[in-house]
C-alpha cells in the first residue's frame, strides 16, 4: 500500500523519428503524486495529458516510445519493468479511468465478466467469490441493483452508470494510485459530482493517490490539492490549487483560467415583440414496442427571431430527440412544429440547421473537409464548381478556419477545428435557425470559449435564432436569453436566464443550479474562499462525513 508515483524528466517521441532533432511529444515531464493526494493535470486538448497517463501504464501506441527519464511507482521503475511486472502493476497498483466509459467496455460481455478480470488477476478471486466481490464493488460505486448490474451489458447502462462501473473496475485491483483521464467530461454536472465524490471517498478512506487529468478547472478547484498545467508536452506551471488558481504565473494558465470563467456577456436581447420563427405545440415522441417509451411528452416552446433559447437537461432527458425533431430528422409522434420563416429559402427544410455534438463523428472520415462541405451544396442549388468553392471559402473564413485545412481529413484535425467546420457546413445553407446540440461539450475550456464566441458573433451578424441544447449550466448562462428545462421529456420550467439562475422554480431546476456550484461564471472565487474555510475547519471539498 501507499507508494508514490514519481515521473522524472520523461521524454516521449515518435519511434520512427531519426534525425538530430526528433519531435518530442512529451519533454522533461516531472511530477509526483503522494499517497492520498489529489493532483490535477490540466491543459487544452493535445497538450500531452493523456500521453502522460498512458506512459505511466506503458501502454503507448506502437509508434511512440519513451526516449528518456523514469517513471517510478514506489520502488519499481516502470520504464525498466518487465512485461510480467507491468501486467501486475496495470489494474493492480496502478488503476486507470478512461474518458468515454461506454467505449471502454467490450460490448459483447457483461459488466460482471469485466469485473472478474482484475479480480482474478490481482486479487486471486474466482467463481462465486469473484462474483460476490463484483456485486460488492458495484454497490460501493452506487449501483442501486448491483445483482442486475453484473448481468448488464455495457449498452444497457447510461453514461453515468457506465462511468461508475468503470470506476468499480479500476478499484477492483485495490490500486495505490489512480490515473483518471477526463473521466467526467462527457457527464453532466450532477453525475460528475457523484463520480468525484466517490473518488474523494476512496482517497480519504484508503489513501488512494489520484492523478486527475481534466480541462475543467471547476473540478480542479473543488477537489485538487495541487495543480499541474501542461502545454505542448511540458509542464509549464505547478503549485497548490488555491495559489495557482488565484495567482497564475504564466500566460497560458491565465488563458485557461479566463476561458473557464464564462462571464455572461451583455447582449442586446431581442424585443419581446419580435416574430416567433418556431412554434412547438404539444410535441411528443414515443419509441419502442407500442410506443410505450416516451422521449418527449407535451413539449410546447417558441423561439423568437434573433433569440437564443437554452434547453437544459441531464443525460437522457430528451434534449437530443427535441433537437432532431426541430430539424426534421425525427418526426414527432404527436403535436406539431411550425416554422414561420421568411425569405426565399423559408420553405426549404435546410432553413433550420443542426450543429452536432461530436465533431469527429459528424464527418465522413474518408472525405476531405472540402468534399464534406461541398456535399450539402450539391442537391439544392445550381452552382458552378467555382461558385461552390467561393461559398465554401467564405464560410470557412466566417468561422475563422485556415483554408489550408480544407484538404485534410477529419482524422488530421483537432476537435475545435472540426467543430468550426461543422458550423461552417451548417452556415453554407444559409439557415435562419441554428440548433446547437451540446456543440461544445467535447471541447476543452479554451476551445469551448472561442466556439461560443464564434456562435454569438454569427448569431449577431446573420440575425440567426439559436437553440442551445446543453447540460452545461455555464454555457446556457453565457449564451442564452431564455432557458427551458427538460426533465424526462417534459418541459418543467421556462424562464428568462437571469431569473432562472437567481431563483429557479422547479425542484429539478433548483437541483441543477445547485449542482452547478462551483460555477465557472462567477462562482470560482467564492468557491475557493469556501474551500479555504473548509480546509481551516479540517474538512475537505465536500460536506463533512463522519
Amino acid at each position: 500500500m501507499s507508494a508514490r508515483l514519481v515521473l522524472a524528466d520523461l521524454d516521449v517521441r515518435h519511434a520512427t523519428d531519426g534525425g538530430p532533432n526528433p519531435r518530442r511529444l512529451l519533454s522533461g515531464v516531472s511530477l509526483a503524486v503522494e499517497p492520498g493526494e489529489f493532483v490535477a493535470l490540466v491543459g487544452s486538448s493535445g497538450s500531452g495529458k493523456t500521453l502522460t497517463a498512458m506512459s505511466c501504464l506503458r501502454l503507448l501506441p506502437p509508434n511512440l516510445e519513451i526516449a528518456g527519464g523514469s517513471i517510478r511507482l514506489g520502488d519499481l521503475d516502470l520504464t525498466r519493468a518487465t512485461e510480467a511486472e507491468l501486467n501486475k502493476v496495470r489494474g493492480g497498483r496502478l488503476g486507470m479511468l478512461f474518458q468515454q466509459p461506454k467505449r471502454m467496455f467490450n460490448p459483447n460481455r457483461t459488466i460482471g465478466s469485466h469485473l472478474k478480470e482484475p479480480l482474478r488477476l490481482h486479487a486471486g478471486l474466482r467463481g462465486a467469490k469473484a462474483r460476490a466481490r463484483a456485486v460488492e464493488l458495484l454497490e460501493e460505486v452506487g449501483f442501486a441493483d448491483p445483482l442486475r448490474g453484473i448481468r448488464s451489458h455495457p449498452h444497457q447502462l447510461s453514461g453515468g452508470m457506465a462511468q461508475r462501473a468503470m470506476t468499480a473496475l479500476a478499484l477492483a485491483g485495490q490500486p495505490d494510485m489512480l490515473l483518471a483521464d477526463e473521466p467526467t467530461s462527457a457527464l453532466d454536472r450532477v453525475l460528475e459530482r457523484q463520480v468525484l465524490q466517490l473518488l474523494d471517498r476512496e482517497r480519504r478512506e484508503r489513501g488512494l493517490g489520484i492523478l486527475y487529468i481534466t480541462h475543467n478547472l471547476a473540478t480542479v478547484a473543488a477537489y485538487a490539492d495541487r495543480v499541474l498545467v501542461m502545454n505542448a508536452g511540458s509542464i509549464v506551471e505547478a503549485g497548490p490549487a488555491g495559489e495557482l488558481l488565484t495567482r497564475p504565473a504564466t500566460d497560458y494558465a491565465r488563458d485557461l483560467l479566463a476561458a473557464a470563467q464564462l462571464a455572461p456577456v451583455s447582449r442586446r436581447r431581442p424585443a419581446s415583440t419580435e416574430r416567433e420563427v418556431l412554434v412547438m405545440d404539444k410535441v411528443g415522441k414515443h419509441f419502442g414496442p407500442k410506443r410505450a417509451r416516451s422521449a418527449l411528452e407535451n413539449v410546447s416552446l417558441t423561439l423568437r427571431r434573433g433569440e437564443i433559447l437554452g434547453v437544459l437537461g441531464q443525460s437522457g432527458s430528451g434534449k437530443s430527440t427535441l433537437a432532431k425533431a426541430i430539424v426534421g430528422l425525427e418526426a414527432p409522434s404527436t403535436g406539431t412544429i411550425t416554422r414561420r420563416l421568411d425569405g426565399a429559402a423559408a420553405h426549404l427544410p435546410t432553413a433550420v440547421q443542426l450543429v452536432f455534438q461530436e465533431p469527429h463523428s459528424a464527418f465522413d472520415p474518408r472525405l476531405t473537409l472540402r468534399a464534406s462541405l461541398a456535399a450539402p451544396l450539391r442537391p439544392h442549388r445550381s452552382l458552378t464548381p467555382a461558385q461552390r468553392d467561393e461559398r465554401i471559402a467564405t464560410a470557412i473564413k466566417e468561422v475563422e478556419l485556415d483554408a489550408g485545412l480544407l484538404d485534410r481529413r477529419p482524422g488530421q484535425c483537432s476537435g475545435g477545428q472540426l467543430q468550426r467546420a461543422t458550423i461552417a457546413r451548417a452556415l453554407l445553407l444559409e439557415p435562419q435557425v441554428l440548433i446547437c446540440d451540446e456543440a461544445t461539450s467535447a471541447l476543452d475550456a479554451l476551445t469551448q470559449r472561442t466556439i461560443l464566441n464564434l456562435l454569438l458573433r454569427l448569431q449577431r451578424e446573420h440575425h440567426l435564432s439559436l437553440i442551445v441544447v446543453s447540460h452545461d449550466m455555464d454555457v446556457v448562462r453565457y449564451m442564452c436569453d431564455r432557458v427551458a428545462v427538460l426533465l424526462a421529456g417534459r418541459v418543467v420550467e421556462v424562464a428568462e436566464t437571469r431569473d432562472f439562475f437567481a431563483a429557479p422554480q422547479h425542484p429539478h431546476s433548483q437541483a441543477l443550479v445547485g449542482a452547478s456550484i462551483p460555477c465557472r461564471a462567477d462562482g470560482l472565487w467564492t468557491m475557493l474562499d469556501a474551500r479555504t474555510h473548509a480546509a481551516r475547519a479540517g474538512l475537505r471539498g465536500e460536506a463533512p462525513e463522519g
Partner: protein
Amino acid sequence: MLQFITKRTATLLAAVAVSSFAVFLIPYVTPGDPVRKIIRSRVAGDAIDASSVQALAQNLGLNESLATQYFRWLGNFFSGDMGLSYVSRTPVVEQVLPALAVTLSLVAMSLGLAAAVALPLGIISGLRPGSMPDKAITGVTQALIAMPEYWVAPVLVLVFALKLPVLPTAGWNDLSSAVLPVFTLALRPISFFTSAVRAGIIDAAAADHVPAARARGLSHAQSIIRHVIPNGMVPLSTLFAVWFAGLLGGSVIVEVIFAVPGMGRLLFDAVINSDIPLAQGGVVVVVALAVGVTTLADFVHRLISPTVGGSLA
C-alpha cells in the same frame, strides 16, 4: 426477445408461403394443360379423349378455385404427400428425403472444413495485417475465388481417376467418397470466411476497449483471447448461415460432377426430365430449410452479440 421471435417466425412463414405459392404455380404457367400433360405422360403418344380429360380434372380437383387447390396441395405437402414423380412413379418424398440427408451432410462437412481452416488463417492474418503471413494467406485465399467449382471438380476427377487412384471420384458411399466433393465445395467458403474473420479481427483489435483491458492488467495474449478473437468471429455466424442456405441448392455442380445423390443432383435431374412434382418438392424443401437456417442464425447472432437490436432500457 419474445417479440423478436414472433416477428422472425412470421417472416419465415411468409417467405415459405410466398415461395411455395410460386412453386405451386409452376405447372399452371408452363405451356400446356396440366391434365393433358399428365395423361400424355401416362399414355404416351395416343390421342387424348376429351371426356377422360374432364374426368381426370374432376378427379384431381382441378376444377376448383386456385386458392383451394393451393391450400390442399400445401396441406398434403407438409403432411408428407408431395405427389408422385412423373419419371419414377414413386412418391417424391421418398426421393427428396434421402437426397436432403446427403446434401445436408455434404454442406455441413464442407462448411465445417471451411470454418476450421478459415478461423486460424483469418485470425493470423487479422492480428498482423500487412505482415508476410497475412500477405501469403490473403493471396492464396483470394486465388481460391478464381478457381470455380466447375474447373476444380473436373481437374480433381481427372487427377484421382487417372493418375492417382487413391480416392473415389464418384458416388456417395463411405467417408472416402466424400473427400473430393467436400474439398471442392469448401474452397470458396474458405476464401470468404477467411477474409470475413480477418476483417472482423482487425475491427475488434482496433476497439478502444482492448487497451482498456490491457490497463486492467491483461497481457497482450489474454486481451486478444478474451476480447479480440471472440468479437472478431461474430460476423462469421451470419456468413456461415448465408452460405449454408446457399449451398443447399447450390451444390449442383459438385453433386453432378462427383455423382453425389443429393438435392442439387435431384433438382438437376428433375429439370432435365421436366419432372415437375419432383422439382416442386425439392425446391420447397430447400427454400424452407434455407429460410429456417437464416432465421436460426439471426437468433444465434443476437445471443452472442447483445447490442444487435438491443433495447436501450
